[in-house]
């Protein structure tokens, strides 16, 4: 494992300024709070509205950890079911979104443990959906970017990510793909913000090493 240079390590473990937790604007947070209060009184319309507001991100987070589209849908549904049946116990000390994404991450990890496979393992064979996309792309001739190339690029990303541990991969997806802040990630994963920074730093080092090695092999 690459050693973290001392000045950087010391800088990373320095105390940062805490930031107020916020996912989106404070008005959006306030709306979420109101919807949660109504959902806690068994207002189903309020809960459905919460689903519509957060479904994209739940899908994106689950999709970053799991590979299979069917698994992502199943997990996303499970997450909202769990949220509905335990919303009365949610005390709103954290933002609803943080609580929801915490459930999402935990459900994904539980599934992976049950399946006992390393996530994002590179598979030689395409799923049926991917094969259909390739088929469609070979038939198109309107000058759009080659879908096949994009598919290959995405598979490369998945192969790169397979070198990371579950937790590091989750953190990287939350940070780099979903745009969560370090503090939000710390809240979702229930760890120290400085630990998040150090792990992100190391994860990026590993990804970069792998990218450079692939380039060398390619050239």
């Amino acid at each position, binding site marked *: 494992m690459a050693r973290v240079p001392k000045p950087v390590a010391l800088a990373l473990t320095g105390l940062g300024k805490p930031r107020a937790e916020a996912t989106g604007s404070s008005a959006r947070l306030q709306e979420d709070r109101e919807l949660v209060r109504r959902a806690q009184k068994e207002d189903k319309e309020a809960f459905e509205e919460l689903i519509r507001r957060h479904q994209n991100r739940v899908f994106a987070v689950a999709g970053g950890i799991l590979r299979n589209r069917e698994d992502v849908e199943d997990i996303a549904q499970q997450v909202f079911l769990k949220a509905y049946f335990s919303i009365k116990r949610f005390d709103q000390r954290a933002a609803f979104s943080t609580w929801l994404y915490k459930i999402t991450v935990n459900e994904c990890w539980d599934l992976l443990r049950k399946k006992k496979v390393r996530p994002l393992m590179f598979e030689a064979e395409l799923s049926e959906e991917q094969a259909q996309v390739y088929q469609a792309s070979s038939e198109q001739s309107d000058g759009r970017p080659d879908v096949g190339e994009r598919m290959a690029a995405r598979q490369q990303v998945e192969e790169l990510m397979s070198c990371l541990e579950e937790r590091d991969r989750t953190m990287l997806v939350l940070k780099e793909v979903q745009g969560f802040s370090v503090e939000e990630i710390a809240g979702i994963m229930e760890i120290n913000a400085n630990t998040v*920074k150090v792990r992100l730093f190391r994860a990026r080092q590993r990804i970069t090493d792998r990218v450079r090695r692939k380039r060398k092999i390619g050239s």
Partner: protein
Amino acid sequence: MGNLGNREKENCRRFLDALEELPGSGEARRSLEEWRAELPEVEERHAGSCETCRTALEEFVETRNALSEMQVEKPGPWFATRVMAAINAREQEEETQDGVWISVRRLAPRLVAVSALLLVLGGSWAVELKRSEGQSADRRGGDMVFDSSPTPTWYDDGLGTLNEVRP
């Protein structure tokens, strides 16, 4: 010298914090220079003078560009409706189970009374059985131990009968 070292560490720490605060670029790939230009002026200058932080910036850019191709899953148009249907189905299932339990709870006092009666009756019968077995065992044992049927006088050669001895 100590102060200079501390100041350097502080500059590195601020630089790394600034890196983490850079917004996402969506799916677009960007060059190192483009990302560097996004940093605050002080941190941007620091990247020019600190090799370690410049390396950190390069790794940041490589990772961002590598992940820009990551497929972001999106829900279908009926996802929320499906979830609400699943919630309703589960609530109905729980109500049915609750219904069974409610019937059990209603019958519970009667069940308790019947069980108690059966226990009492069963217990009494068992005690009676044991007692009667005990008595018959006693009777058989006493006969054997204390059976005092008189031996005939003509049988005992050595001793005379009481009638003969006593006048």
